[in-house]
């Protein structure tokens, strides 16, 4: 295991959160990282909150009903011819970086390529013979092989489950679920999906049979959209908002409050539909549940800033995305969260050089075409290099910049995801 290992530490914690703008392959990168960790012996859950079932496609799961975590069979990966190369990613689990003693004792990890091959080729639940680690050469008991479970977040279902759990009575739960605001709020509206992702995350992370949760996040404009979701929902549900909406001004109201009321009542007049009455009823119906929500939200927030949580920003090398990635990084940093790495997905793969082409045993016409293709490649490479250079310029010196070269096709199977993990490289 080398210190230069690109994924060092990323997969060693309890939680890995992948943030980034839409369309950068965040889902794919999350799945590849999760797969790498699972093949290294960790028990991994990967959750996507993207409504499109892309991750599940790549993982070969049923896209229709994917809210429940389902195990991904890893044995097929034995067929990946160059599985040995996957070790680059497996090596990420380093006991020295993990404080959690139970993890060090229980979880298995792969120390070198031969173990990786052995694990993958055997495709069985147990492998033996750990080396290194904390116990000064103590030979561990049988190690547990990793497993990977994938699921897709269903915000509506999660929200219903929360309401059912926290509501004081089934009738109260019913009243909430019948509320017009709730019915719309729990489907497509801003922030709720993020909040529900957080809820599920909390559930998964509390499961004793899971070592690592890898979280893909909804495509976001702002990095904090997701991390901030619990606070936003709590803001709506807290008592001050109820006071405001209910019109029963208590002490300490201000001109600002009066103005807010003016807006709200103007809107209510405009609609003439007692919409605010519904909002109020909705908020009130959560009244007794507020404490439970606040508690869960606080735990979720703590989880996100915990020492064994790694946040990575995923991007591609297109200028508009690198600019966004930079914004994300800065916003996270301002919020006290230092991303562990920035991963540039779909970078140009290595390609034949002009010198190689010059030596190629082909007709002059074909050689000219190959040269032309290499020029085209060089043009795009120049574009990419400029984007990456400007990305790097905006990042703190210590922050790792990793590249995932383009496969040249959509990852269609587990082996493709494994290849992506394998190709993770330091830029």
């Amino acid at each position, binding site marked *: 295991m080398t210190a230069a290992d690109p994924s060092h530490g990323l997969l060693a914690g309890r939680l890995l959160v992948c943030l980034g703008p839409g369309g950068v392959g965040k889902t794919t990168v999350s799945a590849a990282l999760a797969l790498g960790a699972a093949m290294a012996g960790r028990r991994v859950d990967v959750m996507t909150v993207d409504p499109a079932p892309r991750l599940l496609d790549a993982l070969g799961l049923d896209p229709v009903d994917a809210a429940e975590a389902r195990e991904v069979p890893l044995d097929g990966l034995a067929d990946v011819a160059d599985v040995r190369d996957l070790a680059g990613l497996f090596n990420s689990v380093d006991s020295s970086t993990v404080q959690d003693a139970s993890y060090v004792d229980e979880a298995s990890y792969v120390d070198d390529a031969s173990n990786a091959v052995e694990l993958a080729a055997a495709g069985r639940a147990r492998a033996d013979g750990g080396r290194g680690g904390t116990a000064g050469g103590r030979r561990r008991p049988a190690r547990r092989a990793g497993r990977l479970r994938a699921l897709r977040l269903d915000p509506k279902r999660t929200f219903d489950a929360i309401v059912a759990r926290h509501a004081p009575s089934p009738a109260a739960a019913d009243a909430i679920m019948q509320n017009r605001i709730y019915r719309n709020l729990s489907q*497509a509206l801003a922030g709720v999906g993020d909040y529900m992702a957080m809820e599920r995350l909390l559930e998964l992370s509390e499961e004793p049979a899971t070592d690592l949760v890898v979280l893909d996040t909804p495509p976001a404009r702002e990095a904090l959209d997701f991390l901030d979701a619990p606070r936003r929902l709590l803001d709506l549900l807290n008592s001050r908002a109820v006071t405001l909406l209910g019109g029963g001004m208590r002490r300490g109201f201000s001109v600002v409050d009066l103005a807010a009321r003016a807006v709200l009542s103007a809107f209510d007049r405009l609609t003439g539909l007692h919409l605010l009455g519904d909002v109020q009823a909705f908020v009130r119906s959560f009244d007794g549940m507020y404490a439970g929500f606040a508690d869960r939200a606080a735990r979720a927030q703590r989880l996100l800033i915990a020492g064994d949580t790694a946040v990575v920003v995923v991007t591609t090398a297109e200028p508009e995305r690198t600019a966004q990635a930079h914004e994300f990084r800065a916003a996270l940093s301002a919020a006290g969260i230092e991303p562990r790495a920035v991963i540039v997905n779909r970078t140009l793969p290595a390609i034949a050089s002009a010198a*190689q082409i010059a030596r190629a045993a082909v*007709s002059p016409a074909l050689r000219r075409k190959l040269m032309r293709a290499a020029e085209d490649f060089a043009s795009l490479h120049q574009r990419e290099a*400029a984007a990456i250079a400007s990305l790097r310029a905006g990042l703190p010196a210590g922050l790792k910049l990793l590249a995932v070269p383009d496969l040249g096709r959509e990852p269609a199977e587990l082996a493709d995801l494994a290849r992506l993990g394998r190709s993770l490289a330091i830029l």
Partner: protein
Amino acid sequence: MALARLVLVTGKGGTGKSAVAAALALALARRRPTVLVDLDQRMWAARMLGLESSNNPRDNLRDNWRDNSNDAVPHGNGAAAIAKPDAIANLETISLSAGTELEAFIERIVPIKAIARRMLQSRTFGYVSAALPGLEAFLMLERLRIIAGRAALEDRYAVVDAPATGSAIELLSVPGALKQIAPLGTLNRLAANVESFLADASRFAVILTLTPQELALREALEASDVLRGRLSVSVAAAALNCVPHPLFNKSELDELDAPGAPPEFARLAQWRDGAGRFAARARREASRAGLRVVELPMLFSPAMGRAELEELSRAFDAQLFPPKFGKSAKSGKSGKSGKSATASTSAGSAGPASAAKSTGAARSARSTRSARSETSE
């Protein structure tokens, strides 16, 4: 088929939405005054065109917006006119955001400016938007409706650089959701108004961007189903972006692929031309789904700037506005390919034919580029 007054460009992330929107706006601006509308204040489409160079666009936009919103027309084109370029005199860019639309709404309702200001700065403001979910998005669509209305009056076009497919569909679903929250009354009427605007193909249409890749194709086809089915929105075209003009022919590829040949050359050829092969399938499936396919060439250039967008815009122009019969034009061939795709008759015959023709377009586009880059250097 006439193009809608306002065209919203969306697609899977990474399919070049902003570039396509910018190129479309350029193409349209050659015919009519055109406004390029940005929805996220990042102004990528405008920036690529060199129309926006501020280091901190948000602040500037906000200030501009505020200044304009002080004008006497509270509901007109209150949005900011960012830049009026000399080179593209017909093209105006404006930036909308849900937040600013909501602010405008509040400033309209709270007539005392000082109070409105203070309120906007307070956390209370957050409650308002949280308590009335969908309102911001709705106000933004209402603004698009007004922009389209003005475009019709002034015989202009509007092109919207929208967020990626999922978010765009969420945005376009808002009026329906609001109608359900408010089954009667003014808000219902407003929502119904916006909904009928979205369903009116002469005023509003979507262009879906995709690249010759499996997931992009699938997402475009799914989006098209949702837009046309559930939302009754017209999809003017699928813009198939980044289609490489093939460099290698069949026998050359075979030679490179031959057993014993060094694999790196085959990989290079695959990298260069590979997407072209999938493009044929994408074109076929999109046509079969009843989509008119507009094909845009892959540009192997070291930057994506104004010159590249000009080139894409010419490809757009040739396919959106095919020259009439008997009239010869540079890229006339590919114009017909766009048309034949609309007819979407037997997909089998339409596919390869249009493939061959648009290849011609790509080639002519490429030659103009190299000609230009030679003169510029």
